[in-house]
């Protein structure tokens, strides 16, 4: 019936096309390059093994620690504070953190007598720390959403009523169920940590770099040999991302097995001690907030400083000169980022909404996998394939369209992550009642479901826009260098030696992304509560 109302065949084809086209284009792009693959050249490239193991090590360490933190902290942390950390764009956060923790950074100036040179610029440890500080809030946020979908409070009460401690019930009953629901977000974290480029360009070792960064640099090099290496490296990234997904499944399996065994036997002293030690990881979510605030403070101070030399805690003088000089150069990037984000955000929410309704009509079971696939594939590989497929060289407007198109799969994926669980929990009988009262499907949707789901809809729009603002690699490559946003400007500014310039652009990116997220989530909260009150 809904099918008839949707005038479905056209709508269905459009939705499938919008969803499937980027993936089809990626596959075609890959197929077109099959002949160009050169594994021998790749494997004999100097430093290739280091590139690979560095990437894998970072991804595994970040995933395992983030999982442990989630297992320890999910029960106690509220999600409200997490949003402010998730709302920080990666690049701006990285610029701020680097200014804090590198050996001459602000943190060590604030803590005199303590000298830590573990976190130099472009150190593996620095890279891991920044990824952890960014990924832990995301995972905790997802964990909160997952916990809302399981009756964990009741399980804890039942466990306690049967003589088990709350902690034991948490570890043996709740955690396995929680990890199962976090499988996809954990895979996203693992693949992202392995294949991230923007953060790695600033914080990861460069001699040699990670494989993802090297593939990116090969792509920017126009020689045919470098291009071949880029495609071959991209495929290796894909294969190793698959391996990392298996690591996530393996980790979940091991924890599940341990929980099952301990249901019928006592937790040993060693295990008890390990669990107590793990509680220390509970400090990490607090640290992410502290670092977030400090990084913001550092960027603010840096952007208005004059003559700030080590070991001074504060600059010799304050000045707005940097802002005044850059003001006219910043705005175009901010406006273009906002414009692209608005188009991408609205299209993403529209597409996710239509897809969720079609999923209900056609009972699509695997929609989530398709929608979230771009998050499980190294971004550089997708971008390379799209670039190969489009190979665009035309009018300026064309580049803008390709940039919008290249942001869509990632924004759609995150919009889906936010909207799908809420849509799933929505009582569809409301729409049925609306239709039985004489309204068409979409009119019922608009007048009943949309206002009742206003909160999640605004939130998914906010996240989709936020993701678009933070895109660096797709903007640079599909934009052919002709589309400049605040993010590409920030990366250019960060690569130089003018730290004040980097701080100004980082703050602007931060303000834009956070402004979108806070503004729209505020609206989401308002709409959500007003719908609930009446």
């Amino acid at each position, binding site marked *: *019936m809904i099918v*008839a109302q949707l005038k479905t065949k056209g709508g269905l084809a459009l939705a499938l096309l919008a969803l499937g086209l980027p993936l089809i284009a990626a596959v075609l792009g890959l197929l077109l390059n099959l002949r160009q693959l050169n594994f021998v050249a790749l494997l004999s490239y100097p430093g290739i093994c280091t590139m690979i193991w560095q990437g894998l090590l970072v991804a595994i360490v970040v995933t395992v620690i983030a999982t442990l933190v989630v297992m320890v902290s999910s029960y106690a942390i509220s999600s409200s504070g997490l949003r402010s950390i998730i709302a920080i764009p990666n690049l701006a956060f990285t610029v701020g953190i680097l200014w804090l923790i590198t050996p001459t950074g602000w943190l060590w100036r604030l803590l005199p007598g303590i000298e830590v040179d573990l976190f130099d610029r472009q150190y593996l440890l620095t890279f891991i720390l920044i990824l952890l500080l960014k990924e832990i809030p995301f995972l905790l946020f997802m964990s909160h959403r997952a916990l809302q979908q399981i009756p964990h409070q009741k399980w804890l009460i039942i466990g306690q009523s049967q003589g088990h401690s709350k902690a034991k019930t948490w570890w043996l009953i709740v955690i396995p169920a929680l990890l199962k629901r976090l499988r996809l977000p954990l895979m996203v974290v693992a693949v992202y940590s392995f294949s991230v480029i923007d953060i790695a360009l600033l914080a990861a070792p460069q001699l040699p770099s990670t494989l993802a960064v090297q593939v990116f640099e090969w792509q920017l090099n126009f020689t045919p040999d470098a291009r071949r290496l880029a495609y071959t490296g991209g495929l290796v990234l894909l294969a190793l991302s698959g391996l990392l997904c298996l690591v996530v499944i393996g980790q979940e399996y091991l924890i599940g097995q341990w929980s099952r065994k301990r249901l019928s036997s006592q937790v040993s002293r060693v295990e008890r001690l390990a669990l107590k030690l793990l509680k220390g990881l509970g400090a990490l979510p607090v640290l992410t907030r502290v670092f977030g605030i400090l990084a913001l403070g550092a960027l603010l101070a840096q952007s208005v400083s004059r003559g700030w030399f080590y070991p001074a805690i504060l600059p010799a003088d304050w000045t707005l000169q940097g802002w005044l000089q850059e003001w006219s150069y910043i705005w175009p990037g901010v406006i273009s980022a906002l414009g692209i984000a608005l188009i991408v955000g609205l299209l993403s929410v529209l597409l996710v909404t239509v897809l969720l309704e079609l999923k209900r009509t056609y009972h699509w079971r695997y929609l989530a996998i398709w929608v979230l696939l771009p998050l499980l594939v190294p971004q550089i590989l997708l971008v390379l394939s799209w670039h190969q497929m489009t190979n665009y060289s035309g009018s300026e407007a064309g580049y803008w369209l390709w940039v919008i198109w290249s942001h869509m799969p990632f924004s759609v994926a995150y919009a889906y992550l936010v909207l799908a669980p809420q849509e799933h929990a929505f009582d569809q009988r409301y729409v049925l009642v609306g239709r039985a009262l*004489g309204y068409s499907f979409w009119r019922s949707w608009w007048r009943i479901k949309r206002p009742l789901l206003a909160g999640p809809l605004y939130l998914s729009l906010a996240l989709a826009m936020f993701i678009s603002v933070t895109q660096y690699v797709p903007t640079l490559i599909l934009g052919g260098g002709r589309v400049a946003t605040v993010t590409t400007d920030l990366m250019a500014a960060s690569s130089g030696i003018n730290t004040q310039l980097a701080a100004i652009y980082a703050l602007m990116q931060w303000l834009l992304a956070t402004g979108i997220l806070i503004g729209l989530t505020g609206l989401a909260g308002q709409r959500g509560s007003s719908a609930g009150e009446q």
Partner: protein
Amino acid sequence: MGKTVLSTSDISMRWPDHRVELPPIQVNAGEVLGIMGPSGSGKSTLLRWLVGEQQQFVRTVGSIFVDGVSVQGVPVEQRKIGILFQDVLLFPHLNVFDNLRFGLPAAQRQLSIAEQTERIMEQLRAIQMSKYAQAAVSSLSGGQRARIGLLRALLNKPRVMLLDEPFAALDARLRCRIREWTYGQLAEQQVATIVVSHDPDDIPANANKLYWPEARDA
């Protein structure tokens, strides 16, 4: 006896592991058909199919006629079949008045605001609830919600009304009163009604009754 409004034939409901074949159903204007059977047997699924919604995991086939015209393939909104659930499902973001205004038939939605208001207030006065017009639906009692729910459905002038365990959420004292009032309203407006319930008391004594058939292997 009133004219036949709803009739069905050859209804077969197939789940992955069992199926149910229903006898032909016929409900006349102003009459009630009570369908009784255990919880989870598929009664609510049948109602949702009759109103025009196909459920996942259940394949239902058969013929439905309203006033002698087949409504197979006709969208929910054009079937003139209303539905009322146990939890009434008043729209929480709209107040009582706007919930009722939503229920006005398409032709009446074209009327001026003043005329629409007059019609709705008239209905509210008839059930002594005019002072609740601007109230949030969350502030209503169970009985008030039930009355507003039925009023909203009847404003739409359905030919058939499907009641899915409509009184199950009400306490015993209220239940009896609301039941009488509901069936009184439906009879007065000559609506053909199907009510499903596992409680025989919810089905009027003079109603035709259908006992849910035994399931067979798929």
